[in-house]
């Protein structure tokens, strides 16, 4: 029963009255890059304002370090992170507003609707599936937020395949699940990073090490799995902090690398007991 689905496999979502191609949206203009092929001339109102790249904005990646709580139980290697060059507000300066083409790069233009439609067959866009994907994404957001998890996932999402991952995930032990999610990473990342899965009464909390989960790892999470985030923090500590922050009671932990002494102490402070180099249980008190 590992891979069963709650709906017939020939089930087709009803896309009647749904536009499958976003004909009124110009992703090139919105994101500020040139289209891949020459296109028809644009209406005057869509012409870029000829602003080039801002010299002040061209110094490579530089962001404010995320604020880390001084009480973080595990802050590996670095009690005082090196300063970074940007100290502005957390909102992205590069977040363009609809119709804002001031940041469009050299040689860029717009797209005619037909060009947008052409993107529908592309591997990055696949607009034909977009309504389905949007619903899935919405469902993913709902179920990864514990505040919504108990209330918002209803039968309406079953037909979109939301329940199959849940069944599979629920039947997999935390250690195996940690390996599954870890193996989504490329070979280099698998050697360098850590993935932790913490079973709790609010769902499974999944965490990565200092740089947290990759987007493909997050996409691999199923129903009842909660992505945790805590930059600079070990995966075990990230998961336990998340559990504490949502009031969840942990029961079992599995990690893809040996639990370090600091994290072992943290596990014990949460009432846990190591059962191997990579696993722990949290007996009920």
């Amino acid at each position, binding site marked *: 029963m590992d891979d069963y689905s709650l709906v017939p496999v020939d089930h087709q979502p009803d896309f009647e009255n749904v536009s499958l191609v976003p004909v009124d949206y110009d992703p090139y203009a919105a994101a500020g890059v040139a289209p891949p092929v020459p296109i028809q001339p644009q209406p005057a109102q869509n012409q870029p304002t000829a602003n080039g790249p801002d010299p002040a904005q061209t110094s490579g990646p530089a*962001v404010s370090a995320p604020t880390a709580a001084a009480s973080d139980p595990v802050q590996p290697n670095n009690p005082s992170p090196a300063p970074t060059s940007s100290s502005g507000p957390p909102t992205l300066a590069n977040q363009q507003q609809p119709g804002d083409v001031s940041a469009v790069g050299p040689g860029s233009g717009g797209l005619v609707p037909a060009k947008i439609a052409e993107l529908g067959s592309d591997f990055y866009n696949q607009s034909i599936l977009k309504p389905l*994907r949007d619903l899935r994404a919405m469902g993913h957001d709902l179920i990864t937020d514990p505040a919504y998890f108990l209330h918002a996932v209803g039968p309406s999402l079953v037909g979109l395949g939301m329940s199959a991952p849940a069944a599979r995930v629920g039947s997999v032990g935390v250690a195996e699940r940690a390996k599954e999610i870890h193996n989504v990473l490329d070979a280099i990342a698998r050697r360098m990073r850590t993935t932790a899965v913490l079973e709790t009464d609010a769902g499974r909390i999944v965490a990565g090490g*200092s*740089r947290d989960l990759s987007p493909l790892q997050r996409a691999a999470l199923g129903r009842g799995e909660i992505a945790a985030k805590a930059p600079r923090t070990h995966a075990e500590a990230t998961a336990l902090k998340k559990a504490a922050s949502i009031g969840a009671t942990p029961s079992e932990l599995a990690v893809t690398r040996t639990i370090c002494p600091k994290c072992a102490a943290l596990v014990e402070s949460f009432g846990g007991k190591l059962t191997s180099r990579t696993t722990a249980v949290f007996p009920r008190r």
Partner: protein
Amino acid sequence: MGILRFDQASLKTELDRIAAPLRVVFAAAVAERLLPAYVNFSHKTGWGNPQLLAEILERLWRDVDGIKMSPEELQQNIHLSTELIPQEDEISWVPDLAWAEDAAAAVVYALSCRQSGKSQDAAWAATRAYDALDHFVTTQEDIDPSTAGAEERIVSNPLIQAEFMRQQRDLRELLAVDREDESALIQKIRQRAKAESINVFNKGS
């Protein structure tokens, strides 16, 4: 709203449709665009060797342009560039470490693609660009991925969308090129990747 989404399996399928040397071009272009992230990290932390990483990538470009590396030289460059990947256990954590790791790893995957010819290696290079920008956006905007709407907010960020479009554009051009025009296209993609690299993490990309 039409949002581009990264589908590694589909990307690999598309990469399977082009010749192995052109897959290397695709991966090298990704690595070229990420390279400034490594340079910036190294300047901030004093760790790494951006000049060596740039030279290795430059050597790969000359290889695809016809000045081939021997298998030994190729293996050596894979080894050297792998050694240049910063590891969080060795260096005090700064957010830049994440995308510097991705930049160096993308070079390794471009070289691995040259060695193996496999689409998967080129797809991993592209995935590293996604990883880098995903981490950049979630860090800069302090987005908690467990909150409602977070994934849509991340993937729809213009920086991520722009990189998806650059990859899409490069792949389309590589799919469409005639054999006699390959050399010119490789030069075009190379120069464009260099020019675009300064803006991958910034407004105006």
